[in-house]
């Protein structure tokens, strides 16, 4: 490579490196998507049909983790209460299904429903609205206070559902079956798998698109330098709140999927340890990478499943594995895979 000048060479190197990184990234995404699309067939063919179920669970957590990355990684809002929206979405599906089964309307007026077209949007909207209200309060603080207040609100919701005896309290609520798309029941694991995959892919694609929009530019700018944003004449509060709301809605949708997956909802879904686990997925996968948290979810759910089958003290093994993973993949798994980790460390 000829070097016309020091400055010129550095631009050249950067754009060339950027292009190679970009191609590698696209390659990994395409391969990952193809593997996920082919997986149910591979699972059936190789006689490990349960694999489909496991990967469904990974993708549901992946969706929740990506939604957390949208606020934590992209927007710089370190929420320690994201599982609240995950659990809330699950409860919306659970409660609607309960009233649909019992035949008695909620508060005597609202009928229950078992339909996907009603229950899932309801889960998304309720979670988003709660995120809007709580976010409006939380975003008045920043730094450690923000972390603590998001955690506090999530715990309030947790204890609210624990004490909600009508819907099972801390025993939770069992769903009689999965939600229904007109006459098709989602009991078919392969159909349910592809629905989860479709929603995850659609959400990640939407987020990628969002990053390059006017809205996304403001949110990313705000996470980097609030002072700069004020100096160019924008108060970022409402944009951050909108971002928080979108993430809450997506987590609610993931919760709706979880309720269908497990056919069971309980307050444990919104416990702070669950929020912490989502954070671990994001950090392990790569903060602010959107694809990374999916890897994080795959790793955590995978480890949890394999280790629990070995020993009941599985967290004893999980801990060191996580420490090693964080130490050796600085910047997260995604950056390690796409070769960005060195640039990240600089």
């Amino acid at each position: 490579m000829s070097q016309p000048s020091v400055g010129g060479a550095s631009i050249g190197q950067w754009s060339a490196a950027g292009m190679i990184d970009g191609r590698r990234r696209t390659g990994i995404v395409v391969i990952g998507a193809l593997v996920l699309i082919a997986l149910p067939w591979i699972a059936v063919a190789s006689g490990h049909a349960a694999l489909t179920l496991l990967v469904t669970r990974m993708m549901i957590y992946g969706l929740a983790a990506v939604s957390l990355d949208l606020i934590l990684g992209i927007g710089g809002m370190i929420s320690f209460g994201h599982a609240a929206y995950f659990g809330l979405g699950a409860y919306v599906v659970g409660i609607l299904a309960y009233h649909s089964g019992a035949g008695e309307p909620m508060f005597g007026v609202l009928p229950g429903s078992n339909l996907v077209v009603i229950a899932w949007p309801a889960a998304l909207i309720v979670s988003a609205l709660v995120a809007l209200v709580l976010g409006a309060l939380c975003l008045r603080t920043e730094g450690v206070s923000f972390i603590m207040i998001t955690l506090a609100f999530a715990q309030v919701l947790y204890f609210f559902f624990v004490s909600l005896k009508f819907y099972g309290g801390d025993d939770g609520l069992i769903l009689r079956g999965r939600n229904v798309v007109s006459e098709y029941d989602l009991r078919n694991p392969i159909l349910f798998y592809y629905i989860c995959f479709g929603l995850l892919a659609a959400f990640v694609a939407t987020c990628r698109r969002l990053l390059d929009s006017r809205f996304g530019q403001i949110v990313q700018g705000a996470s980097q330098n609030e002072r700069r944003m004020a100096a160019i004449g924008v108060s970022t509060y409402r944009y951050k709140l909108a971002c928080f709301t979108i993430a809450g809605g997506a987590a609610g949708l993931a919760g709706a999927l979880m309720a269908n997956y497990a056919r069971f909802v309980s307050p444990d879904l919104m416990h702070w340890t669950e929020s912490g686990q989502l954070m671990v997925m994001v950090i392990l996968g790569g903060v602010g990478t959107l694809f990374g948290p999916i890897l994080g979810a795959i790793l955590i759910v995978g480890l949890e499943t394999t280790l629990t089958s070995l020993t009941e003290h599985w967290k004893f093994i999980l801990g060191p594995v996580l420490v090693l993973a964080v130490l050796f993949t600085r910047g997260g798994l995604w950056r390690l895979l796409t070769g960005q980790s060195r640039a990240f460390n600089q």
Partner: protein
Amino acid sequence: MLRVRGLTKRFGGLLATDDLDLDIWVGELHALIGPNGAGKTTALAQIAGEILPTAGSIHFDGVDISRDSAPARVGRGLARTFQITQLLHTFTTEDNVALAVQIRCGHSFRFWADVHRDQTLRKPALEYLERVGLSSRAQALAGELSHGEQRQLEVAVALATKPRLLMLDEPLAGLGPAEAAEMVGLLRRLKGQIAILLIEHDMDAVFDLADRITVLTSGRRIAIGPPNEIQCNADVRAAYLGEE
């Protein structure tokens, strides 16, 4: 155009700004000088709305803006640059400017269209980079720019908010001779087009560019006037220039 009266800022026992009066006329280049710790940057931050004064009023174009937020003041036409550059380091040079253009164009609740293909943002952004002499670095990351280039970018971003009063906090600090000459050239081109409040330690540049100069020591104004008067002022020589 800008009218500051009785501006006072107290940090505990420290009086950072002490009953400061300051007028900036339309199209004027007004320099604010004084020894280190004189409260120049603190005064600027209060005019920009980042720090609330303990007392005093700030009028811009006859409107009392004392209680306006910093972003609202930018909307009225007050822009600033920072002594320690405040840029979005992972954004490209062009994107830093384009974001300022975008904010000027109204709300940003647009979720779909790609800003990088939006010519209503790209074209003005490139024009501002052209004006400060950075257009060849448009696609470099802001964090990769040299110190001098970052200073130029600060000015381009501030200009992109279409200010009528531009406040520059030590734009020459840390620049090499060639870069400094380039920045002085840029300020000379801007002079007359918009009002400028310049904080600067480089006295050659200040006396060369300024229409009027205000001198601060310990938050107090000790002199105001055109450069030749300030140069002869006994108080100023004693407090500030005397030792040189």
